[in-house]
């Protein structure tokens, strides 16, 4: 078996039937990380116990124990998710020395199913960014062209997966942070319905928008990983109690009779030529497979980016108030604490600990929540958010899934947009409304630019209707013109 490109279930089955040991699998991927990651900067730290953990899986198999759905499968975890005993920095200096005493629910569930955690993956600081250039640990490079960004904020996860430094990765998505890097790196990335996956132990950015999800190499791998990480968690009051379906077993590429919605307000232009071509090819393909293409209207989507940034920055300014240098994380140096004003202590610690993008967003959020502006900004954004969501729900009465581009263009060059935050924010135009409305959305590779950069297509479904979303993605994947293409770095 070619371990590098094997699917998650192929690896797990081989480990369980002792064709290969979990330790051999971990060692194989460890070698890949050692030889390739210097070109990508995808990993921020390695799990020093990875081989020992894999050995433990092997000995459990030897004893005849049930080791789960992902036995011996090596995963990389985004820095945003707490991992017991393994540094969790959120890509920030302010958490550069933070070692959580517990696992996030997502990581605990992966471990329960036999996953070997290989290490932590780089990201934009506190998941704020669309390019992975804001990490305190340096920019991540796109494995298809190392002069380009991998997308953000889960860029480390996307790059590590595309270069197959691991078999699967986990990312988080607040406004497109799984789907946009998945599209830029030619992998499958899923943001589940809000509430499907517990946020317990995931460092909070914008609590009403954040969701974790798989970033993997195929739709089936995504479905399988989703089954493992989804489900009610009493530790997260917003986690849904809905039953978790067997998405991977029920996966189908039959789209006959399905209604595929296209949001007419999205079709105003502004797309780069290759992205537009990929999107229209995907529609033609689904039509040829028996689906019906229907036009739907979500007129409020025009306001998705401003509503998103209002909500996200407001919630971020509140969530990031906890970084004060007292209980954990970085503390600014003071020759002596005697005579130091508490406010100055906080300000110096936070001023030194946070990077530019995070400071800018905290400031925007503080402004929007401040006395006299709260109603004009935060309340208003919440109202328009409800109107947008209702329009989506109305659209789903006329179609089964919505198809759209993921981004306006393929991966841009490192440094190209960094000094223009608004231009960078506009990059999120197709992804943010999904988070605002809490809908599940995913990116599936379906095209390439004239220079060979990957381009994904976004499938969005109604709340908790992940199966239909995965099926449409599987249909596209089965005939994707870029299937089997590998990035230059490998």
């Amino acid at each position: 078996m070619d371990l590098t490109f094997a699917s998650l279930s192929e690896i797990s089955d081989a480990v369980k039937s002792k064709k290969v040991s979990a330790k051999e699998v971990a060692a194989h991927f460890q070698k890949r990380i050692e030889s390739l990651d210097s070109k990508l900067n995808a990993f921020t730290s390695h799990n020093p116990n990875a081989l020992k953990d894999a050995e433990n899986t092997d000995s459990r198999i030897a004893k005849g124990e049930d080791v789960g759905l992902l036995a011996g499968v090596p995963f990389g975890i985004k820095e945003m998710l707490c991992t017991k005993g393994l540094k969790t920095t959120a890509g920030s200096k302010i958490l550069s020395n933070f070692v959580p005493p517990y696992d996030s629910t997502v990581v605990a569930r992966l471990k329960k199913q036999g996953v070997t955690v290989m290490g932590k993956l780089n990201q934009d600081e506190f998941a704020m960014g669309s390019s992975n250039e804001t990490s305190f640990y340096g920019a991540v490079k796109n494995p298809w062209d190392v002069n380009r960004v991998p997308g953000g904020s889960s860029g480390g996860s996307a790059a590590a997966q595309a270069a197959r430094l691991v078999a699967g990765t986990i990312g988080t998505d607040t406004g497109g942070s799984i789907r946009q890097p998945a599209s830029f790196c030619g992998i499958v990335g899923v943001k589940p319905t809000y509430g499907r996956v517990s946020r317990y132990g995931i460092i909070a950015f914008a609590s009403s928008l954040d969701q974790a999800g798989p970033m993997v190499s195929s739709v089936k791998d995504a479905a399988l990983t989703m089954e493992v990480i989804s489900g009610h968690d009493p530790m997260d009051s917003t986690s849904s109690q809905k039953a978790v379906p067997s998405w991977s077993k029920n996966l189908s590429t039959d789209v006959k009779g399905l209604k595929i919605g296209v949001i007419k307000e999205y079709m105003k232009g502004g797309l780069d030529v290759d992205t537009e071509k990929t999107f229209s090819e995907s529609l033609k393909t689904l039509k040829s497979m028996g689906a019906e293409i229907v036009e739907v209207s979500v007129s409020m989507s025009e306001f998705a980016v401003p509503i998103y940034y209002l909500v996200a920055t407001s919630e971020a300014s509140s969530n990031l108030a906890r970084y004060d240098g007292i209980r954990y994380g970085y503390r600014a140096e003071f020759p002596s604490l005697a005579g130091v004003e508490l406010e100055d202590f906080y300000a110096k610690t936070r001023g030194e600990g946070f990077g530019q993008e995070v400071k800018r967003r905290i400031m925007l959020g503080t402004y929007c929540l401040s006395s006299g502006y709260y109603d004009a900004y935060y309340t208003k954004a919440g109202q328009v958010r409800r109107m947008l969501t209702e329009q989506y729900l109305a659209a789903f009465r006329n179609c089964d899934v919505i198809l759209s581009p993921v981004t306006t263009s393929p991966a841009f060059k490192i440094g190209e947009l960094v000094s223009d935050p608004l231009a960078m924010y506009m990059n999120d135009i197709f992804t943010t409304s999904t988070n605002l409305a809490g809908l599940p959305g995913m990116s599936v590779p379906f095209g390439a630019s004239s220079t060979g950069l990957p381009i994904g297509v976004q499938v969005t479904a109604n709340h908790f209707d992940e199966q239909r979303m995965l099926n449409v993605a599987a249909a596209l994947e089965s005939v994707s013109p870029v299937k089997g293409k590998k990035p230059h770095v490998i």
Partner: protein
Amino acid sequence: MDKKAVEHIAKLARLQITDAEAVEFSAQMEKILQNFQKIENINTQGVEPMVTPTEIESFWREDQVVQNYKPEDMVANAPDRAGNLFKVPPVV
């Protein structure tokens, strides 16, 4: 948004920023806030603001005390401490 306003917000946010950052942020925040104003004229009368996008189903658990961590686990990440206590600047 002028530099003075940016400095005031930085103070509210407990963030020390440099003069250069204040100048840079004032231009950038001005531009972003203009973008935010796009939603100003939307008629939202009578619309309940949305705070969470899917329905939250309440659930209950037994009111039991469970000790998951030892005190030393809780202070293990502290930048400065005295035994199991966090060291802070004088507050009175």
